[in-house]
């Protein structure tokens, strides 16, 4: 054994005299095989699970693709195109049915000659939403003004009609399809955000009567199912007003949806208000700002900004909930699917499934993109906290 004696006399027992043999490099990043072993087959049970999941995927996905794409019928004029024949025993999704009914799904029974008005509404709505949701957009205050004040007025004139400008009246009974779904969702947001902010402020107010009324309203609405609120709006609302004022069917449903979403929005906004440090309120008071001024310039800009993801999430919930107006007899997107599904001209064993898959696709694309947006904003807002 090599030894070394230090100048002070201590003897060190072992000193390496030759460099050690190099260690093999760490196995990390050694290609896909290594990744598969680490992530899919790290243990026996994991391996068994992986095989089971692969089997499940292999069992579900190919038939699904076969039904939706390979065996699907893309064109045709009536049910004959989508019926199984000896030459073609397997029939997939009947997309020809969706193509024929497509404009009904979008506009419902809205008069064909006037449908450009709906298109303009879609455009304005998309513009308003884009302006509000693009966080770096210029003049977002004008965007809010546009979305919450200008858009509703213009939309009513555009969709319902404004004879002085040469827009003939189209009764809401002949609105339908995606148009109604978007109108219900948009009204829900446009009305519920301001009312929700007021209710949230009311719930945090120092005035006992205001606080009590806000709490009662919020807890009552959140405690009952949306259907009962819609039933209430559609059968009780006409009783509460003089017969001459009795609102039409769509307006009643809109009142129900607006009340319902306001209560949920109030809780979302309240969470945002609570996240603002107390010092902000005190600083605004110290500067001599009044209640509304401090809200306008100090509290709400911060509170609403952190609340954006939650507002979008409740917009997703609202968008899904709009399907319930179907139950009180409104022609929303889902209802048009139900009507088209029952058309004897297209009665085939695959019609229902095709209709529902199409509807699911539309709802999924809209809701999923909103939720991606919300999580994107959340990441961006959280970026400051992660440093």
């Amino acid at each position, binding site marked *: 054994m090599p030894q070394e004696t230090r100048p002070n006399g201590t003897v060190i027992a072992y000193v390496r005299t030759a460099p050690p043999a190099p260690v093999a490099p760490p196995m990390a990043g050694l290609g896909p095989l290594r990744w598969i072993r680490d992530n899919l087959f790290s243990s026996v049970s994991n391996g068994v699970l992986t095989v089971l999941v692969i089997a499940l995927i292999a069992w579900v996905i190919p038939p699904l693709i076969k039904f939706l794409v390979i065996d699907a019928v893309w064109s045709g004029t009536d049910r004959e195109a989508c019926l199984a024949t000896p030459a073609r025993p397997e029939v997939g999704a009947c997309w020809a049915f969706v193509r024929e009914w497509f404009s009904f799904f979008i506009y419902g029974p809205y008069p064909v000659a006037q449908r450009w008005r709906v298109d303009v509404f879609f455009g304005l709505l998309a513009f308003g939403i884009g302006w509000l949701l693009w966080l770096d957009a210029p003049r977002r205050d004008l965007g809010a003004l546009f979305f919450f004040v200008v858009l509703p007025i213009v939309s009513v004139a555009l969709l319902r009609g404004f004879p002085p400008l040469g827009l003939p009246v189209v009764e809401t009974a002949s609105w339908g399809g995606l148009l109604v779904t978007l109108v219900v969702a948009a009204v829900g947001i446009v009305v519920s955000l301001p009312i929700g902010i007021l209710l949230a402020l009311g719930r945090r107010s120092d005035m006992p009567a205001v606080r009590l009324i806000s709490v009662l309203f919020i807890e009552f609405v959140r405690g*009952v199912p949306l259907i009962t609120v819609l039933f209430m709006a559609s059968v009780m609302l006409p009783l509460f007003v003089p017969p001459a004022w009795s609102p039409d069917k769509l307006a009643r449903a809109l009142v129900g949806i607006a009340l319902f979403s306001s209560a949920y929005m109030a809780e979302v906004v309240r969470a945002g208000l609570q996240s603002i440090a107390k010092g902000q309120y005190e600083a605004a008071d110290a500067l001599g700002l009044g209640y509304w001024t401090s809200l306008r310039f100090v509290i709400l800009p911060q509170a609403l900004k952190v609340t954006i993801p939650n507002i979008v999430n409740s917009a997703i919930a609202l968008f899904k909930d709009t399907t319930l107006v179907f139950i009180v007899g409104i022609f929303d997107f889902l209802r048009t699917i139900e009507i088209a599904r029952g058309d004897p001209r297209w009665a085939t064993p695959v019609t229902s499934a095709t209709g529902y898959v199409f509807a699911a696709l539309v709802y999924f694309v809209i809701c999923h993109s909103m939720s991606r947006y919300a999580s994107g904003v959340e990441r961006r807002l959280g970026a400051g906290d992660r440093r």
Partner: protein
Amino acid sequence: MTERLDRAPPKISPLYDPRYRAIAYQVALCLVLGFLAYSAIENMASNLARASIATGLAFWNHTAGFDISQTLIPYAPDVSTYGRAFWVGLLNTLLVTVLGIVFSTILGFFIGIARLSSNVLIARLAAAYVELIRNIPLLLQLLFWYNAVLKALPGVRGSLGVPGGGFVNNRGLFLPRPEIAGADAIAIAFLAGVAAALVFLWLRGRLTRAVSGVTAFVVTALLVLIPPVVAFVASGATVAFDYPQMGRFNIRGGIEILPEFVALLTGLVFYTASFIAEAVRAGLAAVAKGQTEAAYALGLRRGATLRLIVIPQAMRVIIPPLTNQYLNLTKNSTLAVAIGYPDLVQIFAGTVLNNTGQAVEVIVITMAVYLTISLATSLLMNWYNARTALVER
């Protein structure tokens, strides 16, 4: 300086005094709301009088006269009252809600844990499930299950067999009905056993913790299981099955489960499970990683770490959103009306309302039921939160 302090506070006009202003605002608000309520009631009275619709709860004891497809308690259309129909509907709602809660909790926990699996494939599959189901409206899913899946099943003639001697066709699911001798005695013995177990657990918590967790579990299980088994053996230990028989036009015997019920339960379970999975994932992720690492460092195995360290801490985070999802499931069960399952809303706010025309009373009663369930659950939750909240020293 002293001079200024001695001076009386400046007189402000009451117009600018925040206290008076607050009172004025509140009085104004109450007046406006009071006026709205008054005119609404006034209008309602005149509208009802004009349509000659009765008011009051007298209809509760009138004969209902309509049939209900699923009744858990005896109900006869030409004898039973609207009040009876209300209870039938409420029980049907509770049935689907309770079963929905049980199944969606199991599925939800399973998927939530799968989302955090180290196996990428499983984690991705669970995430895809959650994303897909959460972003499609529940009503659409219910219609899909009912119209595109269950109604697309073969008719009675082509019924598919279910393993164990049952049938499934587009009229529903038909399962063998077990007929156990002395079923009542067994049920009573079971309830007695549960009561004994509860007393035991209460005593254990009250007096001493000396009984270890495993012993306590075994004792509880025995207390619950032994009495019904004894009753079963004592009453002859015979189990006969009433198998469903294929008739010419329909299936007779056995338990008939409505397709509406199956569709509603399936839709609710899949939908709610995706939200429960998210709650479970968030709860498990909220437990700091150091906790797991510390447990490993102490030599605990993976299972013990989960059971003793992670889950108790995660439950504190999971329970509130979980309760919320249970409430949502209860409220979402009202979508039964769209596919015709006879729940409270379909029977009471649907048929009874149409038959009697007494919209106000019927809607108010229906809302009161759901409100009671929600408020009771909230109270329970607050009590639970107060009990399990972290006590920081």
